[in-house]
């Protein structure tokens, strides 16, 4: 087992898949000569050359659509968006073309494409550069959505995504790139649509994904030491398909659920999870499901304010205490 960063895990996934399958290529802004805006594609241009690591003009709609076309012709493109905020310009290519061509063609053209990049808030990037794209894509039939929280999951999921015959939206996190974690040696694949129990507990289920998994784990430590509450942390790892089975199984055991999501509350991805829980596990609930989300406002620039907008460990602890009737 090696200990590597999330960024290195992604690099390894790209390298392994590009070596394994000659039809896999990477395209996006700064992916080649710059080694990637976040250095995820470091060294790949040297190994694979410019047709397989293609620097694009700043034209998200154009190169995302180009990727879809290449997929129609049988290649396996990995389209990098520098951040998912910019991908809004390519929303048409993803939603109207990538997600629908298989369906509209009656099954004749599948689109084995991966769209990847960092989403969510980083540090003081302000309103246009801090958005959480989760619900914009989880909502769309025809695509799959992955949200790895750890290096091992980033590696395994990106490999699975590249091998998947369907379009995959792969949401990373700028604040996750430096995170270190253990990663298995050899071929490591994580199935899309399968959650992972990152911490076992009996008293409450905390459902989270991406960066919020780490917030949840920190909250679980605090809950254990200060309140003797043992929280079970369910890391969704994918948002589409959503592993509702794992969530329900955990809630059946603990009878209490707190859902944590970074993005805005209204129609945020947490709302769907709460609906699934109340619909399928109503009789197992000892309290209403609580949801912790970011505040319903654009991201403020000031560091002091930014900290208040994004969910924190204390917010999660408060929610857990509430569903455990400790407040």
């Amino acid at each position: 087992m090696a200990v590597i960063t999330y960024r290195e895990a992604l690099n390894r996934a790209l390298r392994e898949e590009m070596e394994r399958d000659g039809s896999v290529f990477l395209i996006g802004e700064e992916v080649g000569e710059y080694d990637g805006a976040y250095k995820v594609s470091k060294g790949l241009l040297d190994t694979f050359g410019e047709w397989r690591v293609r620097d694009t003009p700043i034209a998200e709609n154009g190169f995302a659509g180009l990727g879809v076309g290449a997929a129609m012709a049988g290649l396996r493109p990995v389209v990098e968006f520098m951040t998912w905020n910019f991908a809004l310009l390519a929303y048409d290519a993803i939603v109207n073309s990538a997600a629908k061509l298989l369906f509209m063609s009656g099954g004749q053209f599948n689109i084995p494409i991966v769209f990847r990049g960092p989403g969510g808030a980083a540090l003081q990037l302000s309103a246009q550069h801090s958005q959480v794209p989760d619900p914009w894509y989880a909502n769309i039939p025809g695509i799959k959505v992955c949200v790895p929280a750890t290096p091992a999951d980033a590696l395994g999921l990106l490999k699975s995504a590249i091998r998947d015959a369907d379009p995959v939206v792969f949401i990373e996190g700028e604040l996750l790139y430096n995170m270190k974690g253990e990663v298995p040696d050899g071929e490591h694949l994580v199935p899309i649509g399968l959650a992972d129990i990152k911490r076992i507990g009996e008293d409450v289920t905390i459902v989270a994904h991406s960066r919020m998994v780490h917030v949840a784990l920190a909250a679980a430590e605090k809950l254990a030491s200060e309140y003797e509450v043992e929280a079970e942390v369910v890391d969704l790892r994918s948002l589409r398909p959503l592993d509702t089975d794992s969530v329900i199984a955990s809630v059946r055991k603990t009878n209490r659920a707190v859902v944590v999501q970074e993005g805005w509350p209204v129609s945020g991805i947490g709302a769907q999870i709460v609906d699934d829980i109340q619909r399928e596990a109503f009789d197992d609930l000892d309290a209403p499901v609580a949801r912790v989300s970011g505040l319903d406002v654009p991201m403020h620039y000031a560091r002091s304010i930014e900290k208040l907008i994004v969910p924190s460990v204390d917010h999660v602890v408060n929610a857990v205490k509430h569903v455990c009737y400790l407040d």
Partner: protein
Amino acid sequence: MERDNQIDDLAAYGRELLHDMLSSMLLARRFEEKVAESYQMGRIGGFCHLYIGQEAVAVGSIRALRSDDYVFTAYRDHAQAIVRGMKPGSVMAELFGRVDGSSGGAGGSMHMFDADVRFMGGHGIVGTHLPLAAGVGYAIRYRGGDQVVVCFFGDSVVNGGPFHEAFNMVAKWGLPVVYIVENNSYGMGTATDRVASVDNLVTRGHAYEGMHSEQVDGQDVIAMYDSVTRAADRARDEGRPTFIEAITYRYHGHSMSDPAHGTYRTKEEVQRERKNDPIATFCDRLTSQGLMSSEDYDRLDKAAIAASEDAAEFAENSPVPDPAVIYENVYQDEFRGGLDRRDAWR
């Protein structure tokens, strides 16, 4: 538009090719007329955009291609689909929303696809397919092939973002794509010169170094054929893309819900353009050069009419899709947990 430089020695093309082109144009024309009739009888619903009047563009262009080349178009796609080789019955059944349609009834008028003949759709969002065509061009060069991509689109597209982004990439990277704008002077109900700051569209291509641009009489099937032949060779041999402005005209409205004239086009204009009907003028040329008899014409036209009738009958007899198809072709690989988990109350 100058029409003086028409080629007068059509014999060099060979009777077979010439009759084949006429036959295709007649099939496209009779098929679309049948579609119009079927739409008014309620067999076809939703949007339906007829190609009548523009047949020379599709036929001339596609006849210049190889079977391993690729064809993209927007939503006015019935003629290109059939000319490229999709079976009329399959296209008509798709229009009728039946099981034997090319997409099993899931796509409809705007979304004809056939992987076997490399007909890549059938796209409903204006301009959206131009980058897709560039992507296929990228794949061809990636694999070191010599195929060509032809991408048809309407004149409105040139004012939108995807046009510029696609043209920039294909010109910069030298992708084998032939972009053909079917300039029929109107973007739906808006005359091109009302919204295009530069309405001599061919000059738009001049912004992209490496891209060859030319303007062609879209009502002249031979001119189209020649232009696209050159463009394909340019792509295969030099790796250079081409932008062709085909000047053409549609005789019907933008779609079945749009009148042919009386709103944004005058009756006189339509009638005047009809005098330049691409099929009629082509027949005149063939006849005058002794390359076609009236019996030939009748035979070909009857065959086109019969094929269209057969297509409609085939479509009529095809069953409607089973409700189970709702969940088909949303994903090709496994979707854990299924798609119907939240489908209560059915």
